[in-house]
């Protein structure tokens, strides 16, 4: 039987795979606490063109829905940026097992240089802060996903000899 095609990034399947991985880590995400937000992810191709957009809805301890497109979605905030920035972040996560401090979502969005945060209501924006660690650990789950980029390349293999901090 032919093996299923690998998951692509960016795609709905990619974020759904993160949601599945989150369910498998229920204990960990329960410890982090209630996680109630809907936020958007917008990935703009480096060569221009239409961005890929996804809405991720989190309730209690789970990612309960992944939607493609942001039209009509009441998102608390949207994190947007060029494909290159997203790739660099996910490559780091894949290589190290989780984002290092230079590639954490908080760092990348800090002044909006690599990734920007858009929002209509500061209340919604503040949910990025209220659930920051859960959001980061959700993204860190991509280290376990086997996926390919549009050009067919894969993120780097895990570097077991390097750690994100000193032991």
């Amino acid at each position, binding site marked *: 039987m032919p093996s299923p095609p690998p998951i692509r990034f960016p795609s709905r399947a990619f974020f759904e795979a993160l949601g599945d991985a989150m369910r498998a880590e229920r204990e960990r995400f329960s410890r*982090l*606490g*209630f996680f*109630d937000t809907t936020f958007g992810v917008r990935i703009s191709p480096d060569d221009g063109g239409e961005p890929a957009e996804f809405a991720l809805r989190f*309730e*209690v*301890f*789970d990612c309960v829905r992944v939607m493609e497109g942001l039209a009509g979605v009441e998102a608390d905030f949207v994190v947007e940026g060029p494909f290159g920035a997203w790739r660099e972040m996910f490559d780091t996560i894949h290589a190290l097992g989780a984002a*290092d*401090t230079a590639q*954490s979502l*908080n*760092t990348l969005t*800090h*002044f909006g240089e690599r990734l920007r945060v858009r929002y209509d*209501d*500061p*209340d919604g*924006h*503040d949910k990025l*802060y*209220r*659930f*920051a*660690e859960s959001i*980061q650990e959700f993204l860190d789950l991509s280290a376990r996903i086997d996926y390919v980029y549009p050009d067919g390349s894969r993120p780097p293999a895990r570097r077991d000899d390097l750690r*994100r*901090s*000193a*032991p």
Partner: protein
Amino acid sequence: MAYYAEKNFFEDEQLIELVTSILSGNLTLEWYQAQGARVRARPADPRRGLTYEDCNLGPYGYDAIPELIRNRYSMAARGSVLVTKLPDLGYTVNRRSDVWSDNVVTLYEEAKSRRWAPAVDVPWTELAARADPVREAAMAQVCTFLEEVALVAMEMPSKWVFSINQEFLELKSFLCAQMIDEARHVEACRKRALASGQGLGRASASAEQALKELLSAETYPEASLGMNLLLGGFVVAMYRAIAALAGMRADRLLGTLAMQDVARSVAYGVGHMRYHLAHQPAKAVALGEYLDRTEHVVLGIAGSPEFLEPLVLLAAGSLDRERLAAGSRFARRWFRAALEEYFERAAAAGLGDRRERSRLPRLDS
């Protein structure tokens, strides 16, 4: 001690007779006939458990709390069957819109759920090896400063909770959550400073003067506006910067987890102002004036050398002149971004656009 019982119960024959009678099997069962509302609260979402929102039923619910609390000055549980002769416990904050926020119940549940313990949730052993003394000195100083801030932020809710009517149970519970959040930050920041190899840094006279001004606000709405909305937003930005500039995971976690806690206080601050002004719109003038004269504290705190210089140093990474220039650019952007977020929150809370009115933007020149 100034309050004594109405009698010496040891000489109260009536009491002794009553207890003797009950313990002989003659129950009065006066309470048994109490006609309270019969409800059965159930979890709407079993994954979430039984929340206060699930208990928002009939006379028990927070929706039933009136705007003005009259004749309920004891700790009798909201919705319970009252009896005559309940004492006045001396509450002085008895107006719902002085304290309430539509998000307070959610935030309380979130605070409990998202708790963490610095002793075990920060990987302290990871601090051992890479001890760059300049960086560690900056970290020790910024943590000394944040410990000061947290000590005051812990006292704000504690100062008021004693005076707030017990009918506002969920709000008082959130104030307790704020207290433990800030205790956690006192702890985490002190531990980080004393793990640095540098010891504690210097206390900040300007920050403490400013913090005392905030702490001594005359009314609860002013206190919440000052601490939660005005200062809180800047403290979120401070922890955010620590996480973003972290050289190691321990610092990233400390910054991120603390930021989460403070962000809840900010969310309450915005929600509280919104509710307060929706019900007492005339207060917008006085609160605007409060901000006019109080916003300067932001400069005393976020602009204090005991915070700002180590921030520049952490961003710079060294004392090299060019690196310091880069670090100061980071600090300028940081201040500008935090200020902008404050103005956004103030507007969202119903305080209007303060950009023209505030003296703070003048500093950015």
